C-alpha cells in the first residue's frame, strides 16, 4: 500500500523553509552587479566593476592560489591518514575500536573556537623552533586544516569500508597475499569511490575553513575565506558579492551534476 503523501499544511510549511534556505543565496546575485562602491541594490544601472575588482586586485588571485595549494596538500594528508586508520580498524578490528574512533573524531565535535585556540597554541609553540611550519605560515595552515578535516575523511572511509565484503579479504589472505597486496589489490579497488569522496570533501572543507584559519594566520598566509572575512568585517566590500556569486555557481553546478548522475545511476540500477 502506498504511504500517505505530505498534506497541504506540511507542503506549505516546507515551502516557507525552502524559501528561507535559498533566499540569502539568491540575494547575493543582484548585489554583485551594483555600480556603487558600497553594498546596495543596483537601482536602474548594472555594472561588472566588482567582478573587475577581483581581477584588478592581486590579493584575490593570491588568496585563491594559496587556498588551492593548502586545500590540495591538506586534503591529501588528511585522506591518507584517515585511509590508513580506517584500514587498520577494519582489518584489525581492535576491541577498543569505538574509543579510538571517538578520539580521532574529536576535532569534529569540539567547538571550533576551542580547536582554534588549541591549534594557535601548537603553531605559536612551533614558531619558536622553526619558521617553516608555524604561526602565519602556509604549512602551519596545512597542519591546522589537516587536524580539522581528518575526522570527516575518517567517517567517509569507515562508511565505505562498512560496505566491503570481508570474505574477499579473507580469500586473499588465505591465498597468501601480503598486507600490501590485500590493501592495494583487494580493498582499495573496492572503496575507491569512498576515497575519492573523502578527498573531495576534505578539499572543500579546507577551501572553506575560516574559524581556525583566523586564529593561526595574520598577514602572510591569507586564504580566500580570510580575505573575504577582512572585506566583511571592516566595511562591507561588494567584491565579496562577486566572489560569492562565483562560488555559489560552482557549488550549484557540481550539485546539479551529482544529482543527475545519481538519478541515472538509480535508474540504471533498478
Amino acid at each position: 500500500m502506498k504511504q500517505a503523501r505530505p498534506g497541504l499544511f506540511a507542503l506549505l510549511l516546507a515551502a516557507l523553509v525552502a524559501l528561507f534556505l535559498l533566499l540569502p543565496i539568491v540575494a547575493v546575485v543582484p548585489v554583485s552587479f551594483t555600480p556603487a562602491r558600497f553594498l546596495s541594490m543596483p537601482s536602474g544601472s548594472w555594472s561588472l566593476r566588482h567582478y573587475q575588482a577581483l581581477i584588478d586586485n592581486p590579493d584575490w588571485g593570491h588568496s585563491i592560489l594559496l587556498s588551492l595549494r593548502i586545500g590540495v596538500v591538506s586534503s591529501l594528508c588528511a585522506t591518507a591518514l584517515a585511509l590508513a586508520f580506517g584500514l587498520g580498524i577494519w582489518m584489525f578490528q581492535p576491541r577498543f575500536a569505538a574509543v579510538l574512533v571517538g578520539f580521532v573524531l574529536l576535532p569534529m565535535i569540539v567547538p571550533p573556537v576551542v580547536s582554534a585556540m588549541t591549534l594557535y597554541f601548537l603553531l605559536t609553540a612551533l614558531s619558536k623552533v622553526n619558521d617553516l611550519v608555524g604561526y602565519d605560515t602556509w604549512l602551519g595552515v596545512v597542519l591546522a586544516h589537516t587536524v580539522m578535516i581528518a575526522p570527516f575523511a575518517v567517517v567517509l572511509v569507515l562508511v565505505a569500508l562498512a560496505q566491503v565484503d570481508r570474505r574477499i579479504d579473507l580469500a586473499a589472505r588465505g591465498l597468501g597475499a601480503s598486507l600490501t597486496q590485500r590493501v592495494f589489490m583487494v580493498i582499495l579497488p573496492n572503496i575507491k569511490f569512498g576515497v575519492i569522496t573523502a578527498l573531495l570533501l576534505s578539499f572543500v572543507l579546507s577551501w572553506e575553513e575560516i574559524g581556525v584559519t583566523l586564529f593561526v594566520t595574520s598577514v602572510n598566509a591569507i586564504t580566500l575565506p580570510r580575505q573575504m572575512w577582512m572585506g566583511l568585517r571592516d566595511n562591507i566590500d561588494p567584491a565579496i558579492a562577486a566572489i560569492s556569486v562565483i562560488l555559489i555557481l560552482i557549488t550549484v553546478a557540481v550539485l546539479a551534476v551529482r544529482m543527475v548522475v545519481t538519478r541515472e545511476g538509480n535508474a540504471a540500477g533498478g
Partner: protein
Amino acid sequence: MALRPIALLGPLLLFLGLAYAVPFLGVVQWSFTLPEPGLGRYGAVLTDPLVQSVFVRTFRICAAVTALAVTAAYAIAYVWVRGSPGQRRFAEFCILVPFWISVLTRAFGWVALLSNRGLINTWLQAAGVIAEPLTLVRNELGVIIGMTHFLIPFAVFPLASAMRNLDERVLLAARGLGASRLRIFWTVFVPMTAAGIIGAALIVFVFSLGFFITPAILGGGRSVMVAELVYLRMFQSPDWGLGAAISVVLVLIVGGLMALLFRFVRPSSMVR
C-alpha cells in the same frame, strides 16, 4: 618483519595526539597560569558580569536557534522523505545547496538581505510600508536568523534518518483504526521520531555553542557570543588565560551534552 594491520592505526593517532591532544593540554595549562598562576580565570568565568552576560546571551540565542532550526528542519525533512519524487528532489536541492556553501557567503547573503540598504528594507520602503529602514542586522535578531539558516541542514540529516527508519505499518494500523491525519502525525509519527528530534536538537545546540563567524558578522560586535569573546580576548586585549579558561568550560559543557546525546541516540543510527 612483515607489517601488521595494527600498524596502520599509528600515523593518525600519533598525528592527532601530538597536534591536537597535547596542545589542548597546553591550553588547559594557560587557563591556570596566565597571566598569573591560580584559579583566577575560572573565577572570572563564574563571577565576572561581562563574561556572565555573554554566557547568558549565548544560551538564550542557542536555545532560540535550536527551537527554530529543528522545527524548520522537521518540515523540510518530512517532505524530503515522504514527498512525491519531484518534491523530494526539490527539498534535497534546498537542503544541499546551503549545506555546501561556505559560512561566509551565507552570512554575507543575510547582510545583503537585512542591512539598512539591503533588499528587504529597499523593497519595504519602495512599497511604502515603512519610512525608515528597520534594524534587522547587527543585533540578536540577525544572529538568530543567520545561525538558524546555517544549522537547518545539520538538523535535517538525523531527522530524515529517523523518518526513513520508521515502521510504515504502524502508520497504516493507525489509519486502519480510523485516526485522522493530524492525530496520526501527533500521536504516532512525532513520538516515533523522538530520538531523531532529540539528536537533532543536541547537535544544533552543541554546534551553535561554538559558533563564531555568523555571530561576528551578523551581530556586528553588539551581541557577542562566547566564541567571539574568546577571539576578542585572544587578539584584541591579549588575555590568553581567560580565552583558555572559557575554552575549557566550553569543552566540559559540550562533553556533558554529548554524553546526554549518546544516552538517547545510538551514534550509528544517525548516519544516513
